[in-house]
């Protein structure tokens, strides 16, 4: 039977489109949101999306369509052909990839994650219970389980298919309105999913955060837990996108080969890790994905490219399309060699920070930014927590942060939550001389 995406490709080429890539995504996603220890809403979705790239004589169009019933196909195809024909040629045009690509095989997907239904509620219950046992009064969060299929065909003969599944919990515990802790559990299998542990850890951080002291402004050495380090490194790797680099919306613009961080820091995009949250076999152009080193021992090695940005840069695609903007799939910060239990001692004196949010830039090109520290934050002396602190903001520069990384722990955690859209595997980090500011008027 000819499937929808194949049918659309044929309709497009029959009507004069020279090159096209058509992708059909079919996703099913269930979630339970909760607050004050109780579910607030359960959500289910079943959505098919067609993504179409087309080009005629270097005129190109990219669109996504959720009106995918058969009745609308004629209209979609008519619109795509008309718009493509009427577009001006673009110098950013690159041919649709063709060739005999070799793809990884054997990706395993746990399809049952799409059929958990009411069991999601009991997982929420486990996380809430664990937080209470750890000393929190109340919890809020969201649990997602999802399964999807992606099918890609191209005018150059590619015909590809892969599946995804994941279960992710983002859990925040409150021991008081000021004393909060947040942690996640993210996995591609039920076996690797541990809502109880996420609830326990969030609850424990919340309990430890009771009665915080207002932070004094200054420059501190900082021990960052994986969650806050993932928030920052997710942005760093995102800035390797060839598109963002070319519009100067990145502090990495123009720095290939330069030392931009400490020797301890190596960041890769690796969608080839079996069972990884961001495991991916092919990109939106059908090119096989690959492991790409972005930063190696502090030196910026590679940007992430699709065919278009690669053409502008005189480079090759790294299998990271997005047709317009390439992006990482599965960010990995290579671990260091410090045992987690020794990190506090390595810090000595400074701040132990567990989470952040709302990272914004004064200048993308220079990397001047600030972000709000949230959830557990603690003042440390002689390798021991002295007391929780509040009111902290990191007001610094991304390259300076990378350069001041002194230690990384030896264990990686998979992080995907509200602030971290692309799955990010990170250790904990010790970063020297981080500028911390606070608000006037406390």
């Amino acid at each position, binding site marked *: 039977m000819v499937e929808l995406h194949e049918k659309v490709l044929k309709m497009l080429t029959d009507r004069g489109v020279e090159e096209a890539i058509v992708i059909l995504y079919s996703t099913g996603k269930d979630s339970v949101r909760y607050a004050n220890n109780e579910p607030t809403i359960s*959500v289910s979705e079943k*959505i*098919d999306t067609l993504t179409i790239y087309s080009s005629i004589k270097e005129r190109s169009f990219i*669109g996504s369509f959720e009106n995918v019933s058969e009745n609308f196909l004629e209209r979609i195809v008519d619109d795509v052909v008309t718009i493509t024909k009427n577009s001006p040629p673009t110098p950013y045009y690159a041919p649709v990839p063709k060739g005999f690509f070799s793809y990884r095989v054997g990706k395993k997907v746990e399809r049952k994650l799409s059929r958990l239904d009411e069991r999601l509620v009991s997982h929420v219950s486990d996380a809430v219970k664990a937080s209470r046992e750890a000393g929190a009064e109340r919890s809020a969060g969201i649990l997602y389980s999802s399964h999807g299929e992606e099918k890609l065909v191209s005018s150059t003969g590619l015909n590809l298919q892969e599946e995804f599944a994941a279960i992710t919990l*983002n859990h925040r515990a409150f021991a008081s309105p000021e004393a909060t802790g947040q942690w996640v559990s993210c996995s591609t299998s039920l076996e690797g999913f541990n809502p109880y542990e996420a609830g326990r850890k969030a609850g424990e951080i919340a309990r430890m955060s009771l009665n915080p002291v207002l932070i004094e402004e200054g420059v501190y050495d900082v021990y960052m837990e994986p969650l806050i380090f993932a928030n920052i490194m997710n942005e760093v790797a995102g800035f390797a996108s060839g598109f963002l680099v070319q519009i100067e919306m990145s502090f990495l613009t123009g720095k290939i080969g330069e030392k931009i961080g400490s020797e301890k820091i190596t960041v890769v995009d690796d969608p080839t890790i079996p069972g990884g949250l961001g495991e991916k076999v092919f990109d939106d152009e059908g090119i096989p994905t690959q492991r790409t080193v972005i930063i190696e021992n502090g030196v910026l090695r590679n940007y992430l490219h699709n065919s278009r940005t690669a053409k502008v840069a005189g480079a090759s695609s790294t299998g990271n399309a997005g047709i317009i903007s390439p992006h990482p799939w599965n960010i990995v910060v290579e671990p260091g060699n410090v045992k987690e239990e020794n990190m506090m001692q390595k810090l000595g004196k400074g701040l132990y920070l567990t989470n952040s949010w709302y990272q*914004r830039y004064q200048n993308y090109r220079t990397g001047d930014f*600030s972000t*709000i520290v949230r959830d557990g934050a603690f003042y440390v002396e002689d390798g021991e927590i002295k007391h929780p602190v509040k009111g902290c903001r990191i007001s610094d520069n991304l390259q300076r942060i990378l350069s001041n990384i002194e230690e990384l722990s030896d264990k990686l955690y998979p992080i995907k939550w509200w602030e971290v859209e692309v799955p990010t595997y990170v250790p904990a980090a010790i970063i020297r001389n981080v500028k911390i500011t606070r608000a006037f008027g406390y």
Partner: protein
Amino acid sequence: MEEIAELSKKVLDYAVAAGASYVETRFHNDFERGVALKNGEVEAVEANYEMGLGLRVLVNGGLGFASTNILKPENVTRIVDKAVKMARASSSLKSGRTVFSEEEAYSLDWRVSEKKRLEDWSFNDKIAFLKSLDETIMNLGINVSSRYIAYSEGKTERLYRNTEGALISSLVPRPSLFALITVADSSKGIMQRTLQFGGSGGLEIVESWRLNEKLVNEVKTLHKMLTESIKPPDGVVDVVVGSEVTGIISHEASGHPGEADRILGREGAQAGESYLKISDLNRRIGSEVVNVVDDPTIPGSYGFYLFDDEGVKARRKYLIKEGRIYEFLTNRETAASLRVKSNGSARASGYDVEPIVRMSNTYVLPGEHSVEELLSDVAEGVYVKSFMEWNIDDKRWNQRYVGLEAYMIENGKVTKPVRSPVIEITTEKLFSSVDAVGKDLDFTAATCGKGDPMQGIPVYTGGPSLRIRGIRVGSVG
């Protein structure tokens, strides 16, 4: 739409039969088309069509939402069953029941008209217009090292129906434009500006942005700030902020903390809670000259609507009146918890997400002073007209705004440009330190993010210039 009206009626009947005490459906037919210029050349032409059905059910006091764009009867039935089943399972963990405030059920159609139809502005003319903007910028004799200009026009058509008899259809066209401009100087470095424009209506909205004039001014200003600015004062001084900065303050420090779902803890794990408690109505938070409203009914505004996504009639709300907390933003769920009527603040970014409490056009009401009057009484201070970096903590108390176009004020006069002055301040200190409000009301289009999954919705932030006495100003780095 007749077919859809029929389908939504069937969904209501089916869900009630399956055990739901309340059901609503929201059908969207949304499309967006756009074109982006990267350094003066068309990157690609883009389009995004979304069409599908979202529904909410109350079952045993549990709330469920489901959505699909596969409108075949067997699939729609399946997702309704799932919504009911999941809502029932959730209810088993609840100590109380989710209820909605009682509201009037309207049956009507509302739409925003295009005085000049966007479709009549040919596609090639749109591209030519963007290219002419780009050329104008490049002919200023300033080193603009990169430009990204993205124009987009969207239309959202919705049909809302619930088991209480509401049946509302609507249509809103919205053009918008985003730009990132980078200016470089060999000795002074690099400075950047992001700009957003948006409104509801047709080509007349795009014309009202006066893009040519504004972009030219922005580029010249960036160059001036980059090449001439000095370090800002470091200490406690008076500050005058322009409309753009007033707008982000009203949005972040008044609008968000006034969202009842945050106050009740429902956004606790994501956007967070609020410095406000339910009992904080009438609490003094600012000086008597501070009045903040949220008003979805401003014609042509980016956050315009007449009925919200729960079918409740929209109206202007005072968030802060004469310096005191006056009203929270509510939807039907939070209104029931607070034992009030909803004030029509429920919005959903698409058919596939639940409606949650949102702002629309949030702004400080204008006063009577000219900008010159505000400045004239400042012996030493900083005038912050625009900003780039900003953020605020998840209780909306501890915020930071870093100025972009900014100047020293000396003896009542605007003098030298200053580089990236930092205002980092608590909400109460900020609003309490406002001693005079300008009459130069203006608005800035923005996309507000909230919810999980993230919902970006169009809003205006706005207000006039404000004079803020004796607050700390610092610098970046």
